[in-house]
């Protein structure tokens, strides 16, 4: 890319016409940086999913305590 192609981020006017055409022909619409700014719609987690996620969260917390116990007993 030429030195002229060094404007700030998201400056559409500084992109040469040829580069612009290349982007339009090579990328899918939702691959553009601008398109990714729109958030993905939120989805509510269901009962079973929440149960699994909370169970694994508690499992992780408990196991981390086990790891710390092992490290503590190992360093003594």
């Amino acid at each position, binding site marked *: 890319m030429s030195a002229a192609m060094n404007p700030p981020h998201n400056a559409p006017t500084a992109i040469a016409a040829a580069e612009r055409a290349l982007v339009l022909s090579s990328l899918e619409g939702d691959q*553009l940086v601008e398109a990714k700014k729109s958030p993905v719609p939120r989805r509510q987690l269901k009962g079973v999913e929440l149960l699994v*996620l909370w169970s694994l969260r508690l499992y992780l917390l408990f196991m981390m305590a086990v790891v710390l116990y092992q490290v503590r007993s190992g360093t003594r």
Partner: protein
Amino acid sequence: MTADAPAPKVRTEPASPVGEAQAPVVITHEDVDRAHDRARVQGARSRRGAFSRIRLLWLLLGPGILVMLGENDGPSMLSYAATGAKFGIGFFLPFIVLTFAMAVVVQEMTVRLGAATHRGHAELIFERFGPFWGWFSMIDLGIGNFLTLVTEFIAIRAGLGFFGVPSGVAVLGALLLLYSALLTHRYWTWERITLAIAAFNLIFVPVALLAHPDWHAIARALGTWTPLPGGLTKDTVLILLADIGATVTPWMLFFQQSATVDKGLTTRDIRFGRLDTLLGATLATVAALAVVAAAAPLFTHHMSAENFEAAQFAQALQPIVGHIGASLFALGMVEAGLVACVTISTSSAYAFGEVAGSPHSLNLRMWEGKAFYSVLFLCAALAAGIVMIPTLPLVYVVLLVNVIAVLAMPPALVFLYLLVNDRELMGPLVSPGWANLLATLVVLLLTGAGILFGVSVIAPSVFAALGGK
């Protein structure tokens, strides 16, 4: 499931292809750089013949190989060396193959998710399930990544220590190499440089050959999953967990999906993404088995490898593999640490950018991606600094890293499972039943391994009742 089928778009803007958009399309330099890479892919795809297919594969491979060889990092190689030294050629050889098969199942889902949504893993968790669950994932990732980065610098320091390089010089040199790879400001160049370094992961193969492995024992072990010297003990469980943590970890999910997006892969490239992942897993398995085979003579000669760091393994192997073999082993440790430093710090920076909503791409110039590069630099620099603290119990940090990775993996996998089965996001690319079954088995296996580890710490006498020592 068809790899070429487009995924439905749940986003509101822009719903139409770029060329058909009504409003003026905002195009950034990041888009232009990615478009150059995609144009080469389209050019190769439009031509027929074997050469064009090979060129297409060359253009599309990268994230899968990087993630798999990146995971063959310092602590992983130390785990494999400890496995060979403690248990020789036996049960753990096919077990390591199994762990890489699990990694392929899991990582393939990230390729599909990235290609279908063009969004990173952290971004999807935050936006789809909300910040409450998003922050849990980020905390798991942040702690795991940081501890792992520390161990990478331990491996680099220890590997270069074998050649008499002072710790400070080793750590500073690694940091400079990491930073210089980013100065290109191009994903493609960064990826090729990192791939070139990662190829040296196979340096462990000649070391294994120099150790003159017993090929019959290797074939027997792979076919029968035996022997397992000592049976199921506390030590066996620790090595078991360390070897799993050496292959499947949360940062791999975040890295490969973000790299797939940054590279610009689309649903048409999923087949090549799978091939890339499979190729990476094959190379990584070969390197991992080579480390076990190289260290196995220590088991045969009844040499204790307790609390060995990389340099001590190389020194212990020197009488068996000679100075060249030992030097290659130490260099391999340096390479393993270096590549993982690059990939893990990049994974942290991607995740931060995705969550903070700031630009996050290796195609960004420094001034465009200040936050992205700052996180990347700071993570690496802080980890490097910690390694230089002389009184820190580094052996425990190494132990912790793989164990924490295994423990944090099931929650991370459940989010991946939910996302890859989200029909609104994935459309016809949702996981088929067999893939869901395999993913469920992986979650159960990892959770079971974690519980086994808990039992081994809290009630080790249980193993004696089961026939172990």
